[in-house]
């Protein structure tokens, strides 16, 4: 397990008071807080090592370049990618999906081809594919999920045809907290030679990830959801795909030679890193990853599982609560509603009690439509949350009930 007191003391913002109450931060699916080592690294980097990378000739640019590439290697190791060439730094998961939709799309998707996503995707794993399909005349097929939050493999198998060129699916749903059996999805896709992209934004901070074991062709996640800075993320892509894909954004850094009659591109990973990226963001991501590796992803997984089971048990016991996604392998989040209470009203009152949860559609409008609701209350967890905080949430829910549906 983990030393929760030590962990909590690593995160300075957790001592904050909100509306005169100690902060209970249960909005980690939206973003996570940063440990002192990450904050120190950001300042330290700007103080000691910062410069533009790769193309300088001086001491600081060497130091910064080394730090950036070391960060890439740290991420490679963290997700067990085969090579650092397969680790592309992006602004986040959204940019990673856009990159694949644009670049893979331009090379491999034509009119009449099919792309499969699920009904529970975050908008960032829906809209780029919609646009790609509009642009090319390809068809977007959506695999529906069951009311309990699960995706049935027979539905997926039925959706696959000779025209299916890519499957893109979320590993852990940010709204429902459902963990999809991505290995099974990939095994099925492999039978048909279909590449698979996995949205790992809500997975990578909660469990050990091995992209080679999972077998995915692409994997994306965001730094700010794994205790690192905003504006940094990772696209993992198998070398064979990234090699075959044209550049996404162009400009400096991703070229080999520029001439007005012909420009040639850099090799991997730089082909996909145009301009000056979020250098300190990448370094902060490596620092966050190393922090988690010291605690141990399996330990974090076990601790958080215990926590989320406790949360689900206590929330389910509140009279009038409906939890969306039941009897599922759960991670990261729980979405629920309270009878005859609008989620916005509940969230506003919880806020005044110092409790930060999220309400609304959580960028998953199709999930809300599936259940015929306008939104949910979502509590989402991180390694620094405690059972005491869940007890405070439950007190909050009872207070909400007494004020809004006595």
């Amino acid at each position, binding site marked *: 397990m983990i030393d929760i007191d030590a962990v909590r003391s690593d995160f300075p913002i957790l001592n904050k008071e909100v509306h005169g109450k100690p902060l209970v931060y249960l909005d980690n699916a939206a973003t996570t807080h940063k440990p002192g080592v990450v904050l120190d690294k950001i300042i330290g980097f700007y103080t000691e090592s910062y410069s533009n990378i790769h193309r300088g000739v001086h001491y600081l640019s060497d130091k910064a370049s080394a730090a950036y590439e070391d960060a890439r290697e740290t991420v490679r190791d963290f997700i067990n990618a085969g090579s650092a060439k397969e680790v592309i730094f992006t602004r986040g998961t959204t940019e990673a999906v856009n990159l694949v939709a644009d670049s893979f799309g331009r090379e491999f998707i034509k009119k009449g081809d099919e792309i499969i996503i699920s009904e529970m995707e975050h908008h960032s794993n829906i809209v780029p594919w919609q646009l790609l399909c509009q642009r090319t005349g390809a068809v977007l097929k959506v695999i529906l999920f069951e009311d309990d939050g699960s995706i049935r493999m027979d539905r997926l198998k039925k959706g696959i045809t000779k025209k299916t060129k890519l499957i893109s699916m979320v590993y852990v749903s940010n709204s429902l907290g459902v963990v999809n059996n991505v290995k099974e999805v990939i095994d099925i896709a492999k039978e048909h030679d279909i590449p698979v992209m996995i949205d790992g934004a809500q997975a990578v901070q909660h469990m050990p990830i091995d992209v080679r074991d999972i077998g995915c062709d692409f994997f994306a996640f965001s730094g700010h959801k794994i205790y690192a800075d905003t504006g940094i993320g990772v696209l993992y892509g198998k070398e064979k795909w990234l090699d075959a894909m044209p550049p996404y954004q162009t400009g400096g850094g991703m070229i080999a030679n520029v001439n007005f009659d012909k420009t040639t591109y850099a090799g991997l990973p730089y082909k996909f890193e145009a301009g000056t990226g979020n250098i300190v963001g990448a370094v902060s991501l490596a620092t966050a990853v190393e922090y988690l590796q010291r605690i141990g992803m399996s330990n974090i997984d076990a601790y958080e599982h215990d926590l989320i089971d406790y949360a689900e048990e206590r929330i389910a016991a509140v009279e009038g609560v409906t939890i969306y996604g039941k009897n599922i392998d759960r991670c990261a989040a729980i979405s629920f509603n309270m009878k005859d209470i609008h989620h*916005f009203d509940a969230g506003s009152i919880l806020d005044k009690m110092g409790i930060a949860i999220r*309400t609304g559609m959580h960028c998953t*409008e199709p999930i809300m439509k599936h259940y015929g609701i306008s939104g949910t209350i979502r509590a989402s967890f991180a390694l620094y949350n405690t059972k005491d905080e869940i007890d405070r949430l439950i007190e909050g829910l009872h207070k909400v009930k007494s*004020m809004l549906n006595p």
Partner: protein
Amino acid sequence: MRINEIQDEIIEEMDALDDWMDKYEYLIDLGRNFTSPKENIKTEDHALKGCQSEVWIRAEMKDDRIFFTADSDSLITRGMLALLLRVLNGQPPKDVADSDLYFIDKIGLSTNLSPSRANGLASIIKQIKSYASQLNADNSEK
């Protein structure tokens, strides 16, 4: 009564409640008693887009005065709408368009004014003022 007089009245009433819980109870009570419009205004053209709560607003003129009908699926939002409509209903449209709604800050609700929340208070006020400007312009042309 003019807009600012009503605002001052509300500020005085809310002054008695300094606990956030009492303020929210008051808003929730207002929201409960806020009668939904008899005709259904919950249509696309009256909707304010956003993902927190749904809000619908309609404006019309009667005898050179502007009247709003509004609805929301959230009780707290209905309470805020009740206060806004108390201040602004039946006023000259130009006064509504030019109004400085200082009561919101004074009664401690300015935290709800974040412009990032698509149909938070700021959006509602923006829409109301836009209707008022439009109807004022239409009215002046007559």
